[in-house]
């Protein structure tokens, strides 16, 4: 195994060549917030915009899920400009996510709660009004429930359904602010050819997909 050594937040790290900064940091106990990243995916999705880090020699913060490690790289995950971006990205996500943790099936195993705790961010977005969707909950499937209102559009379920299970039941519907995860023609899950593998439910970092 070819290795490279780099520094993250002052900590010397030796890791596999070709690995991306986000995973190198996480493996070494350095927390970088992230929702959409999948280590196996050769082409990072890059949609949540939470995993920004600053790399010496680069003008602007970069998404660590797309950046490959190089020898002698110096990474800082908590600079002023990184935190400004990550805080805003988190605030934006929370401004479209109902804060109903107590009733939420993902309470205490929620990626958003983790980020809030690790980064010291408030769950309730300061100064930003919440723009909450009021989409119908899909309760049609016998094994799991899909609540699109809680979805953060990280795309993990879509990736797993299409690339791992190769069922292609879930994908993104619509565009822009009203984008949501759904089935073909946005039909109820029970009408789709879902094979009930429940891999998407396991992958969901929030409470959008939950077992019954």
């Amino acid at each position, binding site marked *: 195994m070819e290795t490279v050594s780099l520094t993250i937040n002052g900590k010397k790290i030796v890791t596999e060549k070709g690995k991306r900064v986000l995973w190198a940091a996480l493996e070494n106990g350095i927390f970088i917030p992230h929702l959409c990243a999948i280590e196996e995916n050769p082409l990072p999705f890059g*949609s949540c915009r*939470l995993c920004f880090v600053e790399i010496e020699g680069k003008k602007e913060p970069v998404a660590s899920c797309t950046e490959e490690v190089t020898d002698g790289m110096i990474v800082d995950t908590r600079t002023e400009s990184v935190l400004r971006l990550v805080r805003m990205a988190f605030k934006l*996500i929370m401004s479209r996510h109902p804060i109903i943790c107590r009733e939420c099936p993902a309470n205490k195993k929620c990626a958003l709660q983790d980020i809030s705790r690790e980064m010291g961010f408030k769950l309730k977005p300061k100064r930003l009004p919440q723009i909450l969707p009021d989409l119908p909950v899909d309760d049609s499937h016998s094994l799991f429930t899909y609540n699109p209102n809680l979805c953060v*559009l990280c795309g993990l379920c879509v990736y797993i359904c299409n690339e791992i299970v190769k069922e292609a039941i879930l994908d993104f519907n619509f565009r822009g*602010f*009203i984008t949501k995860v759904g089935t073909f023609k946005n039909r109820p899950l029970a009408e789709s050819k879902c094979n009930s593998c429940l891999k998407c439910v396991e992958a969901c970092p929030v409470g959008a997909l939950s077992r019954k």
Partner: protein
Amino acid sequence: MMERTVSERFEELKKNALKDFPGMDGKKGATIYVGTATCGRSAGSLEVLSSFEGILKTLNIEARIIKVGCHGHCYAEPMAVVSKPGWPPIMYGYLTPNRAQILIKRFFNEEDPALEWALGAMEENDMIPTVYETPRWSRERRWLLKNCGCIDPEDINHYIAVGGYEGLTYALKMEHGEIIEEIKKAGLRGLGGAGFETWKKWDICRDTPEFPKYLICNADEGDPGAFMDRTILESDPHSIIEGMIIAGYAIGAESGYIYVRKEYPQAVSVLTTAVCQARELGLLGKNILNSKISFDIKINQGAGAFVCGEETALIASIEGKRGVPKPRPPYPANIGLWGKPTLINNVKTLASIPKILAYGAGKVSSLGMEGCMGTAVFALAGKIKNAGLVEIPFGTTLREIIFDIGGGVPPTIKVSNVAGELPKTIKRQFKAVQIGGPSGGCLPESLLDTPVCFDTIADTGAIMGSGGMVVMDEDNCAVETARYFLEFTQKESCGKCTFCRIGTKHMLNILTDITRGAGIMDDLDLLEELAETIKQGSLCNLGKTAPNPVLTTLRYFREEYEIHILDKRCPSLECKDIIAYYILPEKCQRACDACVGSCPTEAIYTRRDRLKAIDQEKCAKCANCMDACPIQYDAIIKISPISQLPESEPRDDDGQKK
């Protein structure tokens, strides 16, 4: 051996092409060139065309009619150039079917060229002033648009006759590296807006050791108010095809795609014809011009998403996937279409290539300024006299483009309903210009002396973009302008990344509040913070540039935002929610009912003293009454803030008012 056959084959094609080509000089008989690109068609050029055909038949005049593209003088459409032996070719504008008939009668039967409709002659002569003496033509440098409006885009022979595919024959005799070197010498930068050096992109793509390679022409022009690519696609499609063949040869690609938006049906049809004709003559396909080079083109139609102009989204769209951008790197030049190295260039960039090779890099680099060589094409729109396309060398100032070439801001003309009274013209002041469409910025008068170049424009906070230029006068509100453009980008956001999807929605909500008089001062800081983080954090360039209109208006017109928030007043009287229409009692004439009839919501009533007044609750603020009020009275005004509206007078039929 190969060299000879390429030239020989081309000479053969050229000889054949010249046989049929009428030329502008009228030596091969009378010819009428009618502009039938989209701009002409929407102004009625097809009716003018059939009117020409009809009158020629009736009068039994022998003249050839040729459908050409657009000269870029869209303000004067429908246009035609009439070339008659014994006369210089004369360009006519503002034609109607009627005028077309009279023109032919007078010109052909009475030897009177109807100069009152002429814009000028197209050639030096001692009878008629030429169009080149007008300020618009004299400052322009026609390079990319040279053939536009002069040749039939649906006849490949016309293109070959005016020197087309000559660049290709030169290129086929060169090595890959030599072509790229020539492009480098010409200093060509991506004319799609980003300004990335073209040769670098080609070099990276050529050096990536993966096969096959692909070439894509990005013709997904979607900015509101921009139509440069459309004109080239419709008026000179072979320049793009030729550019693509050369680019394909230089990077080692054998198949190319033209990604053109479906909303340009005329462009799609012209391109399809052009590709077929090029294939028939052996300019596309296997062994181009008897050389060892093969290249072919597929036309791919976009389905209407603005974001598909972004290169990674465009590739996804061609692959049949959801048209959303991917993180870069990897850049398409390394991993692009079907995972292979792909070169994506804009229409204008590719159309420049044949000319660089045919005329030599020195010709291009003699135009323009340091760092930005060659010419830029702008689409002038909005409050400007001579809307249309202009091509200027880089380094020309914005003031020259808007005032000298575009003719400046047109006055408002109010027509009187009194017989014999002259229309009243009200002068309008230039206020700002939006450069680069929804991704660009709004620049005030003080920056008009900025020379046009990728870098200088970027310093002002706007972007060069693909070349849309929307001019605004004092009736346009800066906040409303920012809101309008942001609404566009927000609607066109693909919804993938957090900043663009949710961030622009918040920004739009804040701006909408401000234009409704419901903003608070804290909003401005939040707006700025959102704008800056969206600009930095978004995944693709749509998100990264979406806040530009807001950031530039905040930078140059901040006081307007403050007036909207603090006084609930719109200084330009444009934001409907904080203005009101009012009839000045001292100017209103009792007997005139013009406004009453014009109101679609029946909001205008008669007061007890027989004067007219507006019921604010019913008023839809459509401004019809303002247009209807005869200029000799000019009694209707807009008032902002609404709180300054005088108390309303009771109705004539007060008892019945509900």
